[in-house]
């Protein structure tokens, strides 16, 4: 464990344990125990477990995040239609209430599991793990996890996904990345959605949205698209196909992938080797 080997001492916290740093000092009366553990380590353990499931079954897992109403479900509906039989899709839907979104996906002939979080503003790794029990991973190429519509809380919880995709619709402000830096900084791909409305809106400039994203030190790609008109959809499908192909290569090599920007706790463990639990030939179990 990293608690003992010291590899989670980073540039940011080293001063605390060196010299007369706070953690080096033992105060009289009680005993100081150095911990240096991520606050979400329980969630992160389950997320790593989810990721092992995805890798073993060669599933690309994409966490889809945005504010409510930016068109996540509509994008998925069109994506399913356009992909046809070329990629097998399944969707985990996160909402506070209702089965509505899962039903929309099922109407497209695709497996969907609805998680209703009640009052919780985000999905966590445990909820996703429960939902995975309702899916047959061997029948899935790409699993979309449509997170609760919220630009704040979902960014803090690793679910086991390989990629974070964030939607920003043109009916929102083009400065959203500046207002919600934690969320947009975590994006591997930013989709500017509802581009068919750009003609009637005079206050959203896609280039400005991209500039705000770059100011977060993000090198993520930015695609502009409209699920309604079909504009830009091909580029999105190409991205999905190439990510899915990369996931197959990783599976062959026994590697895994995490989103580019990790919350602190996960980044510290990013160098840990992938568990080598599926190297005994090609395993296609149904667990």
């Amino acid at each position, binding site marked *: 464990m990293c608690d003992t080997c010291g590899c989670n001492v980073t540039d940011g916290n080293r001063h605390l344990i060196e010299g007369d740093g706070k953690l080096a000092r033992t105060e009289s009366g009680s005993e100081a*125990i150095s911990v240096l553990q991520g606050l979400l380590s329980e969630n992160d353990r389950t997320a790593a477990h989810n990721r092992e499931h995805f890798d073993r079954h060669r599933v690309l897992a994409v966490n889809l995040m945005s504010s409510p109403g930016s068109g996540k479900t509509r994008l998925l509906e069109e994506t399913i239609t356009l992909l046809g039989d070329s990629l097998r899709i399944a969707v985990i839907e996160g909402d506070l209430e209702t089965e509505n979104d899962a039903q929309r996906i099922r109407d497209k002939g695709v497996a969907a599991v609805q998680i209703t979080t009640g009052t919780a503003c985000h999905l966590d790794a445990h909820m996703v793990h429960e939902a995975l029990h309702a899916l047959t991973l061997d029948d899935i190429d790409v699993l979309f996890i449509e997170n609760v519509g919220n630009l704040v809380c979902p960014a803090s919880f690793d679910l086991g996904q390989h990629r974070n995709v964030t939607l920003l619709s043109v009916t929102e402000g083009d400065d959203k990345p500046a207002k919600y830096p934690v969320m947009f900084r975590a994006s591997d791909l930013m989709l500017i959605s509802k581009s068919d409305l750009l003609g009637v809106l005079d206050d959203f400039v896609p280039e400005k949205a991209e500039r705000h994203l770059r100011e977060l030190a993000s090198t993520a790609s930015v695609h502009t698209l409209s699920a309604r008109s079909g504009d830009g959809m091909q580029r999105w499908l190409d991205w999905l196909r190439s990510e899915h192909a990369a996931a197959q290569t990783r599976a062959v090599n026994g590697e895994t992938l995490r989103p580019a920007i990790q919350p602190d706790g996960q980044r510290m463990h990013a160098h840990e080797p992938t568990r080598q639990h599926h190297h005994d030939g090609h395993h296609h179990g149904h667990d």
Partner: protein
Amino acid sequence: MHELAVCQGLMTQVEQIARRENAEQVTRILLSIGPLSGVEAQLLADAYPIAAAGTVAEGAQLEIEQLPIRVKCLTCSEETEATANRLLCGACGDYRTRLLSGDELLLMSLELERRQHA
């Protein structure tokens, strides 16, 4: 408002460590929470008494350390301070930077009183 969920995770960790260390009482908890962690330190501090009630850490002092946001430029190698929505190099202005500190979400240390052996 996910700070209560984060705080409950914290209490699970604290209780595990307290059990392992045979602690009677946890007296102080030190966290490191950066502005880019996605967790609001004040909200976490507000949620803390609720999550700690009835646990081994009830009444423990919660201290939250907040490190400044610092980036290292991948182009000119300078290390400079930055802000949450402007993580550009302070020297040359390049956007290709690596975050040095500011996204911590860590349980740094605990102070505790051990059970006396009979």
